[in-house]
């Protein structure tokens, strides 16, 4: 049996004394999309930061493709084909679109064909490659983030609230792009979301995070899932 | 003055010392004087070695104690304190910046030791403990100005100096002398003693376009930077340097060629004492020998003058030595030197011009130039 793309067991993590995540156990199979849903302040971003090596976990283990990664620095994880798109400050505002994209690859070799490929998803990128990324609109910036993550053909993507503040049309486009990249590749995605509809349109499985704990998890294909999730997220 | 009276009655602390005569040399091994200081130390070491070879002073072995004063006042206080109170020297014989000398004098007064100052300086520093065997403006400035006015038909002068007592004192006298002799000073600029960028001064010099330039900068480094930058700027003007010595001129190299100097000692002086002096240095220091110069030779004379005074007094007692000092004489490379009642020495002065190889060619000499009234209150 192939190793899971991401296997998290009994993970506890937080900032200093404050435990934001408690005893999280999750697994993401190869080729799968797992949506982690939850309201603000429930520890979703902390989960990604811990996986990516920015926060040292207080307990538990993280394995990526079977190899324990606890203690590895972020750039080493990136070298292992993990692409991380943070929620805030995810682009270099003062760098050009092209420079932002170049940073998605470990070297400049193979950049041209890779750029052509992602420009196929988001044509505006090719046209605006010289423009400073900070001058793009919010939606365009999110698409740039997605394109940069896909550029290196990662095996595991960690995506933090990519749909936040986007127009419905753009959200649809994002979902399409993700689905097409997933088909026939080894890519697995851990999707952090508040937008339930978007999450459900891309993911196969979901987990609900509330106050640092997983309170519900299951397959999206089940009937009545959407209502169930809404219950978790409601006021 | 209060200290002086006490000093005369109490006598010297240092006199209680061991069976050696200790001579302190507080000097600027670092900072502005660092270029010239090693040659001064060598002159002192030579004198001491010679004296020891001939039985010392009053049969006691002579030791030289050198302390760096950083060419400044603060460092001088530390160096003087250390020499007088820690090393218990019997006398101080040294060449220093005016800042260091002024700062050291109160320490000398407290420690009550004779202080022979061997540096040319701006004049009028008076203390019962202080004797000077080098020139003052009254002796040095006239040869240069007279020569520029007569031979170069200079009417307008530009003065440049380091901003400290010596620089201002020399140029103050120079300005008076020029104006008293019908010349005109069209610019007078100072840079801090440790400054090394003369660009703004040179800009003004270029704009003023004088007939002659006279400079009086601190010891070594400012002389070098000024001369180099003046040459690099392409400004052509007769240049009299009141602060440069032969060793420094050599360090500057070809850039110094053509500069006029007025000195009481030059290596090219043709007399047996000078030949013996240079030969002695060569023998003692070999390849390490620094070119002797107008600031180092007086140190050699100073040590011998002290020896003569001690021997005449028959004691190391400060009071007695101070009384004997104006009465003794020594003939060194600069000729016979005797300090007067006002603690300064009449000297023979030479106007010279630096050559391509850094040596100085004597153009004119002036016999026994009197320092004038330096310290009329001392009797």
């Amino acid at each position, binding site marked *: 049996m192939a190793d899971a793309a991401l296997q998290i067991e009994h993970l506890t993590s937080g900032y200093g004394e404050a435990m934001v995540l408690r005893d999280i156990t999750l697994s993401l199979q190869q080729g799968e999309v797992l949506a982690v849903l939850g309201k603000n302040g429930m520890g979703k971003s902390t989960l990604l930061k811990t996986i990516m090596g920015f926060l040292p976990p207080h307990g538990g283990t993280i394995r990526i493709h079977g190899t324990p990664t606890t203690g590895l620095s972020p750039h080493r994880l990136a070298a292992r084909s993990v692409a991380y798109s943070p929620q805030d400050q995810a682009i270099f505002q003062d760098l050009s679109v092209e420079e932002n994209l170049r940073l998605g690859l470990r070297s400049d070799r193979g950049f041209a064909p890779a750029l052509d490929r992602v420009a196929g998803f988001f044509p505006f990128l090719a046209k605006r490659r010289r423009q400073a990324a900070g001058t793009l609109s919010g939606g365009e910036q999110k698409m740039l983030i997605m394109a940069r993550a896909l550029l290196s053909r990662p095996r595991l993507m960690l995506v933090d609230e990519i749909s936040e503040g986007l127009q419905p049309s753009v959200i649809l486009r994002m979902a399409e792009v993700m689905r097409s990249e997933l088909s026939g590749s080894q890519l697995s995605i851990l999707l952090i979301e508040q937008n339930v509809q978007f999450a459900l349109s891309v993911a196969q499985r979901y987990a609900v995070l509330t106050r640092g704990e997983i309170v519900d998890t299951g397959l999206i294909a089940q009937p009545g899932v959407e209502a169930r999730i809404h219950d978790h997220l409601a006021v | 003055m209060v200290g002086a009276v006490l000093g005369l009655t109490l006598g010297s602390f240092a006199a209680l010392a061991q069976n050696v005569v200790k001579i302190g040399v507080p000097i600027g091994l670092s900072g*502005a004087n660092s270029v010239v200081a090693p040659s001064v130390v060598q002159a002192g070491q030579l004198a001491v070695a010679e004296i020891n070879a001939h039985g010392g002073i009053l049969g006691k072995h002579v030791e030289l104690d050198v302390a760096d004063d950083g060419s400044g006042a603060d460092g001088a206080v530390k160096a003087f304190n250390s020499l007088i109170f820690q090393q218990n020297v019997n006398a101080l014989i040294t060449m220093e910046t005016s800042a260091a000398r002024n700062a050291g004098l109160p320490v000398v007064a407290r420690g009550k030791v004779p202080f022979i100052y061997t540096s040319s300086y701006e004049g009028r520093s008076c203390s019962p403990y202080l004797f000077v065997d080098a020139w003052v403006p009254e002796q040095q400035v006239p040869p240069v100005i007279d020569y520029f006015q007569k031979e170069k038909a200079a009417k307008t002068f530009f003065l440049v100096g380091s901003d400290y007592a010596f620089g201002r004192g020399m140029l103050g006298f120079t300005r008076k002398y020029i104006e008293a002799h019908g010349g005109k000073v069209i610019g007078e600029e100072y840079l801090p003693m440790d400054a090394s960028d003369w660009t703004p001064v040179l800009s003004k010099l270029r704009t003023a376009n004088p007939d002659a330039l006279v400079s009086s900068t601190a010891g070594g480094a400012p002389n070098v930077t000024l001369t*180099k930058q003046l040459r690099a700027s392409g400004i052509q003007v007769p240049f009299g340097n009141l602060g440069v010595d032969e060793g420094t001129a050599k360090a500057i190299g070809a850039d110094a060629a053509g500069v006029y100097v007025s000195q009481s000692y030059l290596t090219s002086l043709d007399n047996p004492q000078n030949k013996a002096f240079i030969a002695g240095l060569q023998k003692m220091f070999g390849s390490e020998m620094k070119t002797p110069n107008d600031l180092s030779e007086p140190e050699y004379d100073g040590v011998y003058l002290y020896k003569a005074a001690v021997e005449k007094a028959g004691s190391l007692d400060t009071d007695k030595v101070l009384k004997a000092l104006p009465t003794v004489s020594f003939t060194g490379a600069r000729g016979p030197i005797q300090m007067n009642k006002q603690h300064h020495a009449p000297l023979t002065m030479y106007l010279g011009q630096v050559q391509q190889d850094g040596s100085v060619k004597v153009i004119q000499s002036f016999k026994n130039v009197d320092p004038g009234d330096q310290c009329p209150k001392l009797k």
Partner: protein
Amino acid sequence: MTDLLLDILTTAGILFVVAVGLLIVFGVLKIINFAHGGFLTLGGYAALIVTELNWSPWLAAPVALVIGLLLGAAVERLIVRPLYSRPLDAILATWGLSIVVVQLITIGFGRSTQFVLSPVQGAVPLLGTSYSLYRLIMLIVALVLGGLIGVVMQGTRLGLAARAVIMNETLAQSLGINSELVRFATFSVGAGIATVAGALITPLLSIDPLMGLPWLLNAFMLVMVSGTSLISLAAASLVLGGAQVVVSTYSSPVLGALTIVVLAAVLLRIRPAGFARA
């Protein structure tokens, strides 16, 4: 007037060359390297060694570069790296380092002021006046150095990584950039540029163990007002250096020596972010 203009331009050039090493270290590492003055001094002594070995004065800068790169690498590993999270302590520790450098130089070379040969002599006719050739060369060096750093930063993968680390180190790390390596390389290069600058300014001036200090202070103030931008540094060098020349020429050199620090302090009070993003 032409002279004044040339004075301003060449002074700005010299200031830029002296400060740029400090600037790139500050940009990438976010710490002020107070050993910068010590590195400048070291560069001066590298030039002195070249002179004493009777090598061509043109070799002074390359020799200084090698010394600076190696020393910078060692210093980053041993002293700077443990202090990344304590920027104030990093200032103090690098100042301690500059004391050590000064004392080592003093032990090795003595305290006295020394001089090096200039690779070129005298003045050249220019725009109706004659002007110091070496100062003009310094202006060209500044332009070339600024251009070179600009090209590296803008045109190469290394420069792109460095800029990414300057702008957002966390994001750069998550994109696979080894920011520790970037910091290491940057500090080493910054030290190398500092020693080269020290070697380049010495033919104009004199060498002593403390020669780096006044330059460090000016460079520090320039970097404080420039932030992390090369263009800002060029502008600050021109404006503040120009003010220094004007004040020195028309008022007094003593006041001129104050111009840069005082103007920079005033600028920082009015606009804490300095020239950057003005």
